[in-house]
């Protein structure tokens, strides 16, 4: 087999894995959009915030220590204990639920019936707020995250492919774990939405707010639940990306990676988020490999997904799996 083809296959596989991670972020967007019609730009920052909180709790950092030190002239930074990963994840989840409650109570409860663009702006405001808040709470230095996920090259695949092609594929263990977790998450979410009482209530709210209210579904409860779910997805995404490339500001930019995924898959479709994520992951890696790096000077990944989604949308304005847009006067 020619070398180029084998390299291409490796790039393809890595693209699939990256796509899973994009899909993971996109999933959080879809959840909130479906249930409340809010396009939540803050999803990426929520992932960053979740990751920061997780690391902070694990390391026993004192929240707001920088601020406290600046005001009172003290020198505190750590409690001096280490929390096991699982307990820290649970604690972080509590924080994310509290955040979901606060977001709903202080912001979106007051913005019911506003135009979608206003809601979108509010989430950008929320993103700014959370960004500053997270940095102030835990400090803005780059942190490493280690919750015990395997990392590094997968030896088995390396050896097997070396046996087949005479060239070992480099596939990160973390990506494989991420894929498994993402698949499990999607499966759980679909089961949750289809077969549980709360899940059905969530879908009812998504269909029609007023009709849902009239059959006795509490909108507030559903919204807090949905934001908590999105917080949970953000936490998972934060753990994956944080382990992969460190917990730092750029983590919040994965939201920007997830946007074209959403466009491609359609804002309202969970399978769309997965397929869109995979398509974009593979597409941008292959494009960079085949055309970007050799002919265009590289780093095409930053815009390829957007341009792909843009061209695609011109032909199918609602995305791959989105609900058909019906317009009436």
């Amino acid at each position, binding site marked *: 087999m020619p070398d180029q083809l084998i390299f291409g296959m490796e790039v393809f596989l890595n693209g699939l894995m990256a796509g899973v991670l994009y899909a993971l972020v996109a999933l959080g967007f879809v959840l909130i959009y479906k249930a409340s019609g809010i396009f939540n730009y803050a999803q990426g920052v929520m992932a960053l915030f979740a990751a920061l909180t997780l690391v902070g709790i694990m390391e026993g950092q004192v929240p707001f220590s920088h601020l406290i030190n600046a005001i009172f002239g003290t020198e505190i930074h750590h409690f001096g204990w280490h929390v096991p990963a699982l307990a820290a994840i649970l604690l972080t989840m509590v924080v994310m639920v509290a955040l979901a409650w606060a977001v709903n109570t202080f912001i979106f409860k007051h*913005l019911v019936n506003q135009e979608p663009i206003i809601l979108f702006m509010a989430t950008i405001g929320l993103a700014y*707020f959370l960004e500053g*808040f997270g940095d102030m709470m835990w400090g803005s230095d780059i942190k490493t995250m280690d919750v015990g996920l395997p990392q590094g090259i997968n030896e088995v695949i390396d050896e097997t492919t070396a046996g087949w092609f005479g060239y070992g594929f480099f596939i990160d263990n973390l990506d494989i774990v991420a894929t498994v977790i993402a698949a499990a998450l999607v499966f759980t979410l679909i089961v949750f939405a289809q077969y549980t009482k709360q899940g059905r209530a969530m879908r009812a709210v998504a269909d029609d707010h007023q009709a849902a209210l009239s059959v006795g579904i509490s909108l507030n409860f559903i919204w807090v639940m949905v934001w908590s779910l999105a917080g949970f997805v953000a936490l998972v995404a934060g753990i994956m990306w944080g382990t992969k490339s460190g917990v730092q500001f750029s983590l919040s930019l994965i939201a920007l990676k997830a*946007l074209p995924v959403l466009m491609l898959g359609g*804002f309202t479709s969970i399978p769309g988020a997965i397929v869109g994520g995979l398509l974009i992951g593979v597409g941008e890696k292959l494009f960079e490999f085949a055309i970007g790096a050799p002919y265009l000077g590289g*780093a095409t990944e930053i815009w390829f997904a*957007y341009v792909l989604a843009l061209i695609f949308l011109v032909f199918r304005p609602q995305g791959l799996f989105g609900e058909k847009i019906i317009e009436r006067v």
Partner: protein
Amino acid sequence: MFYREAGDFKTSYVADSQTFPIKFDRFRYYAVLLVAFAVVPFVINDYWVNAVFLPFLIYSIAAIGLNILVGYCGQVSLGTGGFMAVGAYACYKLMTGFPEVSIFVHVIISGGITAGVCVLFGLPSLRIKGFYLAVATLAAQFFLVWLFNRVGWFYNYSASGQINAPERTVLGVPITGAETAPWAAYLFCLVFTVVCALVARNLTRGMQGRQWMAIRDMDIAAEIIGVNPLKAKLSAFAVSGFFVGIAGALFFAVYLGAVEVGEVFGINKSFLVLFMVIIGGLGSIFGSFAGAAFLVLLPVLLKNVLVGGLGWPTDLAAHFEFIIVGGLIVIFLVAEPHGLAQLWRVAKEKLRLWPFPH
């Protein structure tokens, strides 16, 4: 007492359809212009020009441009940073390519070039609507910044990849480059801001503006009553691009002097200008000014209070700024979704009846 129409008689159609029909409003406007042109240049110093006045004037132009697109025509754009970069690089190429031509002409042509690019990226708006369009404009943002970063021709193959504004003069006074006097840069930008605001105000009052607003309110209905959506949407993109391009050119040539595209015209710039439009008020020229002033002054104020007054470290103050800006945006949206312009309108109504409100 203020803003009364009573006793303000018009005897010709020209007088009736002037930009500021109310006498008090008109004289207030003249007074502001007088102060801006005749008083401010003599009293400002370097710090005020660079920290407050230049960013305010330039962002005002950008905010007016974006307001035409988002506030008047309803097409949400997140590509402002990229379009400003087009203006900046167009201006740079023109300045270095045709050094004998006046920089006035260069800035205006930069606006024209940006308008063209903006129309190109506005074409999908005919098919894509709402959020899908907002995300689609991000394609412009990322692609343009990447393009200016990678293609050497745009930055004349300079080793650093930066672009630097060479010295150019207007009437013998340097406007760009290191030798620029603060008042000269200020006046140069002020002229552009005033002319742009006047043009925008009158465009939005006329037929073109009404077509845009019809498209914004409901594009299908507008199409049925005879507004050509292709023409209306693309003209909004073109006009908006023109203003944003001028703002980008001024931002690079007069304000910064040297630009590294990824840092200066990144996605944060797009959001910043969008915030100005939202906080100022969608669909209001005055709102663009108010929003620009607000978001230019806020960081200066916070920095002075937190770092200068309370002695906090700068990084902490920067985080605090994020919290405050984010919080204010949310508070504004909850309390007054129509922005500062709406507050101004309410105040005007109150002033009209003051001091006898009944």
